[in-house]
Every structure is written in C-alpha cells, then in structure tokens.
C-alpha cells in the first residue's frame, strides 16, 4: 500500500523523557486521522517531527515516498504539508484580512517588490476562505483583539491557503468552551470538505469529537503507539481506556 505519509522507526528523547519510541505509522491519502493521548504522550512531538520543527534522533519520515526527515519547516511546507498550532501563531498587530494575505503571499512563492498585497484577486481569495470559516465579520479587526475561538479558526484558515495535501491540526478546539467546541469543529470540517484529497491529522482530547470526525484513531502513551484503528475499535481497547480516557482507572 502506498502512503502519503509514512513514519518508520521514529525515536525522540528529551533527556530522560521518551517522546517517541519506535513510531511506525502510515497514512493513506484522504484519511481523517485523530491523534489522541494524555499530555506528554508524544502527539505534538510527532506533529513537530513531521513538520520539521523537531528532528528525530532516529527513524525516517517520507511524504509521497520522498524523505523529508532532514528538511526545514519551510521546505516541508512547500511540499504540501501545512499545520495549525495549539497556541495560534498569528500576526497580532495586523487585521484578519492581512493575516490571510500574508498566508496567500507566502504560499504563492511569487513574492513581488511591486505587486500590491491588497490587489482584488488576492483579497477575493482571502475573503472566500474567511467565508468558509465564517470569519467574514472579523475581516478588518486587529487579530490581537479577536476571541480565542476565532483566532483558532483563523490559524487553520491560514494553513489551508496553500491547499495542502497533508494538514496537521494541533488541538484545534483547545481553549474553547464546551458549548463552542462542536460547532467550531463542524465549521472546520465543513471548510475542509472543500479541499478534495486533503489528508487531515488532528490532535484532540475530546473523544466525542474524535468519534464524530475521525475515520481512524492513533493513540499515544509515553511516546509509543498503543492503538491504531477505526475510532469505535481503538477507543474500546484496554490500553486506550486505561491510559487515554481513564475509564478503566475509574472503574
């Protein structure tokens, strides 16, 4: 089977802490994969290794068969991998629209000395994506003044500007109130629905959201993969119930 993303034998330690221990994962195109696990289980480390922010101590990561292990984040982004962040990484002093225009400009890779950033076609592209994420009303607001949920959505919208083949969402609903989580995730998934063929990996702690939106679940514990299956099966395993959801401990 050919994978869009394949991690083989990934190892990563931070001193005595094992963040990744012999991780072997293959992701096929179009999957919606949820990465679950308690804090410190190694989910974000895995995402950071895929996007080049961290280099594994050992192992290999390939994207469409190409080894991306030694590449810098920018080079990996240009190969079609985009990500959002647990803490949204935005340009706080700029407006929402300008944040989108920066994303457009960077993804286009055709930076110009004279072509206005605010040309009509660039604005139209940015506005279309803002519309998909229901952010139009915030178009001209300074990003630093936006509520947390809106900032999360903008962070993801910016990642989508380049129409990535692989999108990694690091806790897209963290820091958002319980009532807002589901509508927010629905908005995200509806927006992603326009991106035909985009493979999505998302780190999530809310199992209801995982069950609703993931086609596959990969559970981490102490840097190891303890389950990798369809949501209903993965979430029912003893290891996941013990180390991730805590159900067995409660019983």
């Amino acid at each position: 089977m050919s994978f869009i993303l394949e991690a083989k034998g990934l190892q990563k330690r931070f001193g005595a802490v094992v963040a990744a221990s012999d991780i072997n994962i293959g992701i096929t195109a179009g999957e919606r994969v949820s990465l679950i696990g308690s804090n410190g289980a190694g989910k974000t480390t895995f995402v950071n290794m895929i996007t080049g922010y961290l280099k594994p101590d050992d192992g290999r990561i390939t994207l469409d068969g190409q080894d991306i292990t030694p590449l810098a984040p920018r080079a990996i982004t240009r190969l079609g991998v985009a990500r959002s962040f647990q803490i949204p990484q935005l340009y706080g002093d700029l407006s929402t629209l300008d944040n989108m225009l920066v994303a457009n400009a960077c993804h286009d890779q055709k930076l110009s000395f004279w072509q206005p950033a605010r040309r009509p076609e660039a604005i139209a592209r940015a506005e279309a994506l803002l519309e998909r994420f229901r952010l139009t009303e915030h178009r001209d607001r300074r990003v630093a003044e936006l509520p947390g949920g809106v900032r999360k959505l903008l962070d993801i919208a910016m990642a989508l500007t380049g129409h990535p083949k692989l999108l990694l969402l690091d806790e897209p609903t963290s820091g958002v109130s319980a009532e807002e989580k589901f509508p927010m995730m629905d908005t995200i998934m509806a927006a992603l629905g326009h991106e035909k063929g985009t493979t999505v990996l998302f780190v999530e702690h809310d199992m209801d959201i995982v069950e609703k939106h993931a086609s596959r679940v990969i559970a981490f514990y102490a840097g190891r993969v303890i389950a990798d299956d369809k949501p209903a099966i993965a979430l029912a395993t003893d290891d996941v119930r013990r180390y991730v959801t805590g159900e067995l401990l409660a019983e």
Partner: protein
Amino acid sequence: MSATLSTPAVGSPSARVAGTGHGRIVALGLGFCAVLCLAGLFAPKWLTFLLTMAAANGLVSLGIVGLMRGGVVPFGQGMMLALGGYTAALAFNKLGFTDALGLALAGGVVSMLAAAPFAPLLSRYRGIFFAMLTLALSMVTYGLLMKIEVLGGSDGFNLGRPTLFGQALPDARVGYILYVLTIVLATVMALLARIYFDSTRGLVTVAVRENELRVEYLGGSVRQAMTINFILAAFCGGLGGALVVMSLGHVEPNFSFWTTSGEFVFVAILGGWQSVAAVFVASTVLEVVRSFSSAYFPNTWQLALGLFLLFVIRFLPRGIGSLWMRGNNR
C-alpha cells in the same frame, strides 16, 4: 510630502477603494516634488541647503525604516552614508567622473555591493545582536577611513563642483540644482519605498516582525526577507551619502562614526515605520532643530533634541507618521 506617501487605514472605506493601486500616491508625490522644486526658486539659500540635507539624510533613514518594518534596527547606517560619500568623492577626484546623478547612483550601488556579503550573516540576528553587529561594521569602516592616508585620513578630503548631464553648474545655481536633484531622487525613492512596503514582499516583512515562526510555516523565507531589506537599506544609505557629500563638498570618516548612525536611528524612530513621508518630515525636523539650536544655544542643542524625542516617544510611540496612519498596522 506628508500626506501623499501613506496608505489608507485598514478597514476604512478608502482602504477598500485605494488599497490596490498607487496612481493617486504617485501623482501626489510627483506634484509635491514639483511644488518643492518651484518653491526652491524663491527660497533663501540657507533653506534650500537645509532641505537638501534633510532629504539626503532622510534617504539614509529610509533604509533604517525598511529594516524596522522587519523588526530590526541597525546602528551602523552611518557606514552606508560613508561608503556612498567616499564612492562619489573618489569617483569625482580619481576617475574624473563628475555627473551628479551618476555619482549619486554610484554611491548607492557601491554601498549595496559592499553590504551584500554581510547581509546573509546579519539576517540571522535580531534585536541588540543585529544592532551591535551593524555598529561593529560601521566602526571598523570608521577605523579604516581614519588610518588610510590616501583617503585623507581623519581630515577626509574635498571634492569639486559636479556637473549634470554634461553641463557645468554655474556658481549662482549650483545649490539650487543639487537641491532639485536631491528632492527628485528622494521623491522617486520614497514612491518606490511605498510601493515596496505595500507589495507582497513588504507585507511579509511586517509579518516577519510579528511572527517569524509562522512565516516559515507558511512557506516564506525570513532570512531572504531580512537579507533583501539590508541590501536595500544599504542602497538608500549610499545614495543619501553621495548626495550629502556633493552638497557639502567634503567627505570625512565621521560619517561612519556611531553618533552619526545614532542620528539616523533618531530620525527613523521619530518618523515611525508606517509612513514613508514621515521619515522625511522627521529628517527635516532634525535639521531645523540642529540648525537653530546650533545658532542660538550651540552647547545644548542635543538636549533640545533629546527632550523632543522623549516627547514623541511618550505621546506618539509609533512616530510622527502615526498621526496620519492611525489604524494602519502595515
């Protein structure tokens, strides 16, 4: 020049209409340039000289503003002034090349070429490290200029009267012609700077100041942006340096001294990074304060300047330009 070289505020109705083209800004800039050139015909010589120096020094500070937009402040812009000045003076004296426009452009190009090898290194540094590295380069240049006798040592050397398009400049008009040349070049550079600041590259530069990590994760190159800005700043500095030297008729190592660089940083902070026009307004303010203070209280003019800067930082932390760029964060 103040109201002409600024973009409308984000979110304002005018931003949606005028945000994509520069026709209005170019027209206003050229119109203002023409008015200044005509006014120079009737202005006293001391005033045209003051404005010549303000525009030429403003060009040097414009380079700093370009870097400030990316979040770094160089403390060695005096080196670019000196490189441009010495290039023009040497080309005049040693090569016999006397055309004022050619000398000005040569100053800019040589400064740019001299800065290019250092740009990739400097693009790795931020904050005080960037400032100190540029200061170090500037002081090394100062030391070399002081020691090299063929360049006049600590006294520097003079250059004669330039020509323009093959025509000798008459005694009575030389000051005015250099004034017009400086104003025209400053206008052209200011308009180009505005176009650059509003371009996709210009917007990414501002994004670098805000969040470098995200720029890289969007596929942009932070180091490329900083490298380009440093080289462009060098061109502005060299161009301004050549114009200053032609008006003064003299060049000396002090151009590269750290206090000279400090004055350009002063102007850049006074003007702020949002408006191109504000840089030239701030440069004019500095020249006016310097001229009048030197005449009336020669030993304490820096005190007046310092108090003025404190006032601006307290009440206009984003510089004079924020007066008419309110709400625009690009």
